[in-house]
């Protein structure tokens, strides 16, 4: 081969080398870009749900409408609506008034009501009430409105002082049909109850199974069957666990529908393989010399395992448990099967109340046609992802802190 031909070949081979390397980098970059774009897109869609708009409305608290002895009984919404209409005396036709009313939330008078109950001396005076605007008006002031006719809203902006507030309602309210009132409290409490059940069952069971398989089980057919079983279970689609919950727990055992108890049971079975596999890895990482030393000074087999091996494996087991918990927090499909998808406005009080969970709430809201729910959905996703990142962060921190080279 001549020198130039060889040089040419070499150049070609080096070019191929650079190309191949670039493919790898491009694959990684594409994946990262996808993830970042996903997160940015969610935040961009979700941030408007963290603020809400109020109007500062002059309201005359007429003593004839509010009983001084029992200020809680008065119809504040009617008072606010009257004051609202009085601000626009020229709009008197039925359609105009309807449109005006549609700019107020159903809960518009809540602040005023609280104000008067706290301080009954206000009755008879004219006060500036802080009234919550409806979703339509709120979206307009956020610049998200798709309404074509905004003359009334523009007038409102000039005539009445509009203020922006952080919407704590998103975290403190239960679910609602009205976008401006819907909150995540019920879903968050439901998630906590459900995951608590899943963890209370899945964690002891998983750790016990892992200890047995890793430390006590004899290498025989029966153990092989259990091991193959656990690996298969880890790969069964989550929706199948929902079928199990529906057919067994609900139909056969007659447990209540939509309850965190049943959801937790299903999720416990779902994360059981994850916890077992992680715990076994943690137990295996403890060097056998530790156990042998304990046995050597006369400990029984169980004393060696429970007093010496298990404490050393505990950080690893805990990391696995937190990752399992993160998975349980984000799981949706099996919970749809056992009826945790109903519209539930109340915050669940016990493990057998009808409840929904955060991911299912996201699914429910994403299905609603109102534009306001779109940002609520994204905001709920932000809350969920924050929880998951926190959990994963704790797991990584624990792993780093207790990581031990033997």
């Amino acid at each position, binding site marked *: 081969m001549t020198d130039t031909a060889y040089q040419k070949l070499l150049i070609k081979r080096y070019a191929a080398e650079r190309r191949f390397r670039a493919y790898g980098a491009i694959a990684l970059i594409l994946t990262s870009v996808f993830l970042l774009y996903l997160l940015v897109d969610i935040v961009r869609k979700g941030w408007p749900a963290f603020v809400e708009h109020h109007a500062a409305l002059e309201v005359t608290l007429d003593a004839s409408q509010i009983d001084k002895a029992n200020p809680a009984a008065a119809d504040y919404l009617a008072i606010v609506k009257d004051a609202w209409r009085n601000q626009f005396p020229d709009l008197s036709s039925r359609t105009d008034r309807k449109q005006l009313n549609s700019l107020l939330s159903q809960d518009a008078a809540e602040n005023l009501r609280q104000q008067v109950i706290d301080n009954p001396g206000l009755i008879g005076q004219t006060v500036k009430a802080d009234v919550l605007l409806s979703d339509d008006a709120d979206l307009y002031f956020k610049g998200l409105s798709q309404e074509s006719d905004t003359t009334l809203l523009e007038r409102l902006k000039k005539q009445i002082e509009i203020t922006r507030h952080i919407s704590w309602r998103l975290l403190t309210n239960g679910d609602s049909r009205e976008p401006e009132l819907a909150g995540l409290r019920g879903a968050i409490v439901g998630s906590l109850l459900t995951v608590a059940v899943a963890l209370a069952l899945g964690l002891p069971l998983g750790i016990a199974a892992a200890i*047995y398989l890793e430390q006590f089980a004899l290498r025989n057919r029966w153990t092989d069957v259990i091991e193959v079983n656990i690996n298969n279970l880890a790969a069964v689609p989550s929706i199948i*666990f929902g079928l199990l919950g529906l057919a067994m727990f609900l139909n056969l055992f007659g447990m209540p529908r939509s309850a965190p108890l049943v959801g937790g049971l299903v999720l416990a079975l779902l994360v059981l393989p994850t916890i077992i596999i992680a715990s076994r890895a943690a137990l295996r990482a403890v060097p056998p010399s530790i156990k042998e030393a304990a046995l050597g000074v006369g400990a029984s087999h169980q004393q060696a395992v429970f007093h010496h091996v298990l404490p050393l494996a505990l950080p690893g087991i805990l990391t696995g448990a937190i990752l399992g918990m993160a998975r349980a927090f984000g799981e949706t499909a099996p919970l749809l099967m056992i009826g945790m998808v109903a519209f539930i406005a109340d915050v669940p009080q016990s493990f057998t109340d009808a409840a929904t969970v955060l991911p299912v709430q996201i699914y429910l809201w994403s299905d609603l046609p109102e534009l306001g729910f779109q940002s609520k959905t994204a905001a709920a996703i932000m809350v969920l992802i924050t929880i998951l990142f926190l959990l994963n962060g704790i797991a990584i921190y624990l792993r780093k802190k207790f990581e031990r080279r033997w």
Partner: protein
Amino acid sequence: MTLWPLLAITVTVIAAYLFSSRRAIALRLNNTGSFHSLPSYHGLLAAISALLAGLAAFVLLRQFAAFSAPEVAAAAGVIAIAAAALPASKVGATFRARPAFEAIVLAVLIASSVVAILTTAGIFASVVFESLVFFREVGIFEFLFGTHWAPTGTPPAFGFIPLLAGTFLITFIAILVAAPLGLFSAVYMAEYATSNVRSVAKPLLEMLAGIPTVVLGFFAALTVAPFIRNWGEAVGLNVASESALAAGLVMGMMIVPLISSLSDDIINAVPQALRDGSYAMGATKSETIKRVVLPAALPGIVSAVMLAVSRAVGETMIVVMAAGLAANLSFNPLDAVTTITVQIATLLVGDQEFDSAKTLSAFALGLVLFFFTLALNYIALRIVQKYKQQYD
């Protein structure tokens, strides 16, 4: 209903431990000879007897609505005390409390590991029994080979082929996205990346793996699908608003971390000696990867892709939110198709009548899905076992 009985059991368990261990200590102080078990084991034996008996009583009594919470609490407490009384009465120098306690603990450990088998059996039983009822109404051949799926139509049709086609179409798109991305990322991370790049890229991939599928479904339905639709219309294509392409793309991105982390492990397991041999022959890095490392890692990579397929087939939320409901028999990625999991989810959400073929068909679909994923996992496992290279 649950608080009082559990409280009663807890109190009994603590009391049983304290009573038995104190008694053992007292006896031991008076006794000069050897004492078989440590006092704490006498306590633990009494406590675990009380706990197991109390919990069993509680679970059994709960089944009868006739008993009120205080009654159940009292009964569970009495039974727990009775169970603790036996070991407590035997506390003494010769009583072998530790072996007895350890035998119970071992039994509990074995029972916990059997839960996994019970779960599989439970899944199997629930899908099979309901499916058998379904197949009594709808012929099994009609189900497996029918080309029309309309469970709510009049008359209802339960032909499974369109769902299978839809599932395959979306899975195919997903693997088409995920296999190259995941594999190239893994190769880059294992062979080229500096430790700095790895320390950024690995957490990013783990983060992507940890994003709940309902979030990806929202993203697919609200961002990716409209994007594809607009882009398709700009070039004059007719794109359904719930196109298979959008769901498949996002599902592919979901699977990338799975393929890349599995492949990464496999590529790292290829011994350095093979690479060094190739370099010594004058091969470049990419030639070594293509001709030596990847062929050696191939069985593992194939099994990783099979696991990815099984994950894609069983994935629910992305397709529920981003794919369609109508069962079109189509292989055009721009059409709306439906999948097995979508149908299971939609058939079982809302009103369920367990005597109608509509509801039961979901269990037949579940049965198919269960066996399909099991078969994929089994094949993946066998490939690794069969072609596993023994180095050194």
